[in-house]
């Protein structure tokens, strides 16, 4: 089976599986359950109707999505940047590790949403607070992975580079950093889904736009179609994010693929 045939088979399977799910959903809500749960058609209709044209609340769907995405990206990249620097430093220097790891070990297991009350008290639940929460979600995973990546660099690479005359700085930038990239990317991927979950939680607590707000507003208005539309959008955007992520990773970690 060549690659093209394989792709077509995969595509057919995906279409069949999604269609089957939609049909079962459609049939399932015909009876008694239909009073609690809308069918797939109204949900899809609402999704496309509000995407650019109609509004949910005072904004179109695409604007809601952008609000959530911008919050995620701001916190995500901030957390990733700090996490990579801190994690690599912890893996590289015993002293930095000794200073930061006890603190980090305590902060890491706290789920980001546990900070919601305190961030409301400190900074109110405006944009700053949401970005702060997403930052925490991203920062912890990235730090942890960068740290273990830098700690587990194959000593043979370091030895080879040292033999070729590399100084400490050169070892850090030409060996430790690139050798940690796969591990950092694994952290970035987990961090991305964690951020996506956190932005929804933050928006559900307080906001006037965004995907989390759509669901909560739907609940408050008893609008099941709106809730399901919000959930559909969350799923689709989450899927797109991880697809884009994998493309970027494949680009940057080309060397890590085995075979030719």
């Amino acid at each position, binding site marked *: 089976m060549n690659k093209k045939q394989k792709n077509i088979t995969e595509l057919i399977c995906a279409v069949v599986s999604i269609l089957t799910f939609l049909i079962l959903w459609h049939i399932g809500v015909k009876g008694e359950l239909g009073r609690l749960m809308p069918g797939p058609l109204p949900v899809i209709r609402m999704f496309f109707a509000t995407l650019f044209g109609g509004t949910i609340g005072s904004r179109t769907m695409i604007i809601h999505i952008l609000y959530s995405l911008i919050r995620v990206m701001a916190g995500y990249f901030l957390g990733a940047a700090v996490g990579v620097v801190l994690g690599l430093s912890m893996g590289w220097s015993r002293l930095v590790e000794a200073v930061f790891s006890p603190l980090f070990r305590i902060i890491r297991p706290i789920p980001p949403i546990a900070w919601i009350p305190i961030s409301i008290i400190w900074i109110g639940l405006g944009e700053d607070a949401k970005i702060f929460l997403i930052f925490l979600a991203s920062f912890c995973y990235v730090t942890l992975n960068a740290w273990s990546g830098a700690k587990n660099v194959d000593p*043979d690479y370091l030895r080879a*580079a040292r*033999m*070729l005359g*590399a100084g400490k700085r*050169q070892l850090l930038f030409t060996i430790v950093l690139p050798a940690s990239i796969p591990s950092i990317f694994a952290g970035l991927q987990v961090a991305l889904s964690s951020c996506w979950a956190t932005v929804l939680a933050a928006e559900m607590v307080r906001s006037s736009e965004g995907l989390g707000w759509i669901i909560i507003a739907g609940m408050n208005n008893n609008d099941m179609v709106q809730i399901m539309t919000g959930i559909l959008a969350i799923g689709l955007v989450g899927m797109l994010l991880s697809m884009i992520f994998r493309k970027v990773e494949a680009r940057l970690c080309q*060397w890590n693929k085995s*075979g*030719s």
Partner: protein
Amino acid sequence: MEIREKENRQVKVKVSHLTKKFGDLLVLNDISFDVEKGDLLCVVGPTGCGKTTFLNSLTKIYDVTSGEILLDGHPADPKKDHIAYIFQGNSTMPWLTVEQNVAFGLDIRHVPKREKQELTDRYLEIVGLTKYRRYYPKQLSASMLQRVSIARAFATEPELLLMDEPYGQLDIELRFKLEDELVRLWEMTGTTVIFITHNIEEAVYLGEHIMVLTNKPTTVKETMRNPLPRPRDIAAPEFVRLRERVTDLIRWW
């Protein structure tokens, strides 16, 4: 001719009274020897006799307990001296292409771009990897990877090349091929090479000089000149005789 003779006799590496202890364990016991410039010295000894400890002391991975190692009369320092090191197993960087791996040592030393490209191209060609320059290590076989390491070491045009059982994990055919490649490169560049092995045949095939070490605590048992002309024939009677002599030295203490 006389001048050249004298130049050849110039001492590149001078090891005097080298002693290394790990705690109470005496590993290297008062080793002294000289390596002439342009020599290819093969060091053989029983397994676990501290051959690698010896190389690691030479390159300052370990601090020596006493004694000193001089390179051109100064204490050896991998940061300043051009020492290259090829060891057993794969030490190529998986995130760099073959070409970038060969250029790695040159990047570390900030060699100007044009010179770097020239050296990289030249040594890629010599080890026959020009076609594979854009490949990543994961796409190559073990022997190709070892050739990348060899090209990387030679590209830095080292004054001293240290090889620690570099062909230990390769099958016999590849080993023969890479041994010939080493001899060719050594003849071309005139680099001083110290080659550590436990394979006596390999030592006799490669070495200009052969140094036999004893079991722990390690001392030098004997250093001999290898007069056999190149290319050497491992089945020739003189070759076999020399090989057996070295074998006897290792067997008897």
